C-alpha cells in the first residue's frame, strides 16, 4: 500500500494545466472517447475502403496492393457481367420487396387502427416475425419452398396452381426471396404507420364528414396525404435494408441457382472473402454505398415534397 500510494499523482488542483483544459473545453474532452471509437470503427474503414478500391490486391503475402486508379470501376461497369446482373437483381429485389411491404404494411396498420376486441393481442401477433432471427427464418422458408416436401406447393396446389420449383427456379427465385423479406419486415411498416396514424388530427375528418365525404374519399384525400411523410420514412428504412439484404439470400440460395439471386452484397462477399480480390471487392462496396446513398437522397427529396 505504501509503495502504491507513493506512485499516485498529487491531488489535482484547479490551477493545473489539464484541469484547466477540461474545465474550458468540456464538450471536447467528454465526447472524445466516443469520437475516437467512431473514428476507428466507422470513419477510418469507410475511407480505407475507398482507398483500397483504387488498388488491385489478390490477397496473399507475396503480392502487395498495386495502385490502379479507377480500373476496378471501369471493369465493373464495362466488363463484369456478374456485376451488372447483381445490380439489376439488387434493384429488382428492392423494388419488389418494398412495394409488397408498403402496401401490405399500410393496409395492416389501417386494419389494426380500428377499434375491435383483442386489438392489443393481434397487434403483438402481427409484430412477431420482425423479432425472429433472419437465418432461422431463412432455413424454415427453405423447407417450406422445398419442391417435393415443402408446404408451399401444397398450398398453391389447393387453388389449382403449381407445382413450382420456387427458389430453384431462375425466374421465381427473386420473387420467392422477396416474399420471405416481406413476411419478416411488413410489421415494421405497420408499426411506423400505426405511430403515424396516432398523430393524425381529427379536424379534417370532422369537416369531411360534415361535407358528406365517403370513407373511400376520406382515405384517399385525407389519410394517405397526411400519412405520406410517415410512409416515406418507412419506405426509406426498408429500401436501404433491402438494398443490402444479405442474410436470407445467402442462407437460402447463396446467390443461386447459378447467379440468379446474386445481389450486389452477396457478390461482393464472394469476391472479397472467397476469391480474395480485396481491391475489387472494395470498389464494389463503394458502388453499393453510392447506390444506397443515391436511393436515400431521392426518397428524402420525395418526402420533403420538393419533387
Amino acid at each position: 500500500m505504501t509503495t502504491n500510494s507513493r506512485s499516485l499523482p498529487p491531488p489535482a488542483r484547479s490551477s493545473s494545466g489539464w484541469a484547466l483544459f477540461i474545465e474550458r473545453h468540456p464538450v471536447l474532452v467528454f465526447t472524445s472517447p466516443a469520437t475516437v471509437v467512431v473514428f476507428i470503427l466507422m470513419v477510418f474503414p469507410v475511407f480505407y475502403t475507398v482507398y483500397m478500391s483504387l488498388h488491385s490486391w489478390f490477397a496473399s503475402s507475396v503480392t502487395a496492393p498495386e495502385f490502379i486508379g479507377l480500373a476496378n470501376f471501369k471493369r465493373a461497369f464495362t466488363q463484369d457481367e456478374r456485376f451488372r446482373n447483381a445490380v439489376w437483381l439488387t434493384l429488382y429485389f428492392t423494388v419488389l420487396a418494398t412495394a409488397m411491404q408498403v402496401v401490405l404494411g399500410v393496409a395492416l396498420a389501417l386494419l389494426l387502427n380500428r377499434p375491435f376486441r383483442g386489438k392489443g393481442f393481434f397487434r403483438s401477433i402481427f409484430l412477431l416475425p420482425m423479432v425472429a432471427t433472419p437465418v432461422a427464418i431463412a432455413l424454415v422458408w427453405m423447407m417450406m419452398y422445398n419442391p417435393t416436401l415443402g408446404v408451399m406447393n401444397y398450398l398453391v396446389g389447393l387453388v389449382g396452381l403449381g407445382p413450382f420449383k420456387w427458389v430453384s427456379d431462375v425466374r421465381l427465385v427473386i420473387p420467392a426471396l422477396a416474399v420471405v423479406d416481406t413476411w419478416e419486415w411488413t410489421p415494421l411498416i405497420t408499426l411506423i404507420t400505426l405511430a403515424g396514424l396516432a398523430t393524425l388530427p381529427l379536424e379534417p375528418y370532422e369537416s369531411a364528414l360534415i361535407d358528406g365525404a365517403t370513407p373511400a374519399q376520406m382515405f384517399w384525400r385525407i389519410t394517405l396525404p397526411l400519412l405520406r411523410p410517415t410512409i416515406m420514412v418507412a419506405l426509406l428504412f426498408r429500401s436501404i435494408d433491402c438494398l443490402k439484404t444479405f442474410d436470407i439470400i445467402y442462407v437460402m440460395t447463396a446467390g443461386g441457382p447459378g447467379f440468379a439471386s446474386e445481389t450486389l452484397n452477396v457478390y461482393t462477399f464472394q469476391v472479397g472473402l472467397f476469391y480474395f480480390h480485396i481491391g475489387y471487392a472494395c470498389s464494389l462496396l463503394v458502388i453499393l454505398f453510392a447506390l444506397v446513398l443515391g436511393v436515400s437522397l431521392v426518397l428524402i427529396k420525395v418526402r420533403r415534397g420538393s419533387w
Partner: protein
Amino acid sequence: MKICKAVVALGLLAGLLLASTAQAQQFNWQQFKGTQLRVLLNKHPWQAAIEPHLKDFETLTGIKLITEVYPEDQFRAKVLVELTSGASSIDVFMTMPAQEGLKYMRADWYQPVDEFLKDPSLTAPDYNWNDFLDKTREAMVIEGKLIGPPVQVENVSLMYRKDVFQKYGVKVPTTLDEMEAAAKALNGKPMTDDGQPGFGIVNRGKRAAATSMFAGMLYAMGGSWLTPDREPAINSEEAIKAIDMWGRLLRLYGPPGSENNHWYEASSIFSQGKAAMYTDANSLWPVIEDAQKSKVIGKVGYALFPRGPKGQYGSTVAVWGLGMPKTAKNQKAAWLFMQWATNKDQVFKVQTEKGVLGCRDAVWKDPKGKAKVPADLAESLAQGSKVGTPFWNPPVVAVAEVRDAVGAAIVTSIQGGDVKAAANKAAADMKRIMAETEKK
C-alpha cells in the same frame, strides 16, 4: 513353384539382413528431445481419433506438442492469416492440397519434405512411403514437390440401394451409360415402405458445391480441368459431354430443385430412401448409415464411380494431409511428428478405433483394418485411391472462383440450357481468372 520358393527365400534373407542393419543403426526418435512443436488441427474425424494418442509421441520422442483445434472455417482462416503475416509460429498444420495447395506453393509457404523423406537419419526404415495408396501420394505433390503425408482419403463413388436394384432386377452400373440406364429404369419406382415413387438419382447441383463431385464424371468421360500447358479444357468435347450428362441425369431422373442441393440436401434425400443412386464422397457413409436419421441402413452398396466410354476411372482422390510452413522453426522435429502420425501403427489405430478412412494399403488389406466400415466401401476405396484422379478441384490458385465459373455451367445444364455456350463461357472465365491470379 521352385522359382517362387527361391524368390521367397531370397526375400527372407534380404529381410533378415535389412532387419539386422536396421537394428544396428536403431532409428533415433529421441534426436530432437526437448523441442516444442505447435500443431494446428482442423476439427475432423482424424483429429478426433489421433488426439488421444498424441502423448505416445511425446513419450517416444521427448518432443512437446502444443495442439490447437478449430472448426473448419475458422481453421482455414487462422492458417491463412498466420501464413500471410509471414511470422507464423506453426510447425505442422492440416492441409487440403487440392484446395489451397497451389496458392500456398506459389506463395512459398510450404516447406517441401522430399529431402527429409530420403534422409535415413530422419525417416525410420519401417515408414514405407510406398505403402500409401498410389494416388494419395500423388495428391500430396504440388508442382513436383512433396508437401507431407496424407492422413485421410475420400473418393467420389457410387452409392446405390441394393434392395431397389434387386427388386426391379436392374444391374448395378459400372459404366456411365449403365448408370443413365439404371436411373431411367428406376426413376418413379416405389423405393420406400409407403410406396411413394422415388427418384432415379440424386446428386449435388449447387453451383460451386457440385464441381468437386462432377470432377468424377469429367475424368470418367476422359476430360480434365486444364490441358497439359495449363489452358482451360472445360469446353473440350469430353468436358461438354460430362457437363451435359451431369445436368441431364438430374433434370430427367433427379429431384426437382437440384440446382440448390449441396451434400446436406442430397444426402438427406438419399438417406430418406427417396432415390436409387447417389454419387458423392464415400466419407459420407456415416450419414447414410446414421442409426437415428437414416431409413436405408444396411441397404446401401458402395461402388467405384462408374467408368467412362473408354474405361476411364472417375474416382476422385481427395486427401487431407499434414504440411509444414517454410517459417517452421523445428522442421526436422516437425517431420518426425508427420512421420509418426502416419506410420502404420497410428493409421491402424485411427482406422480400427474410429473408422477414419486412412491411406495405407497394408491397413486396408488387414481384415481388422477394414472391420469398421462396410466391406464394399473398403474395397472400392482402396481401389479408387489407386486408380483415380487427385484433381477433384481445378488445379489453379483461385480455386473458389474457378469452381463458381464451372458450377454456373453445371446449373445451366441442369436447367436444360445451352451447355456448349455455357462451357465456352466457363472456359473464358477460367482463362481470365487464371491470368489475374497466377501472374508470374
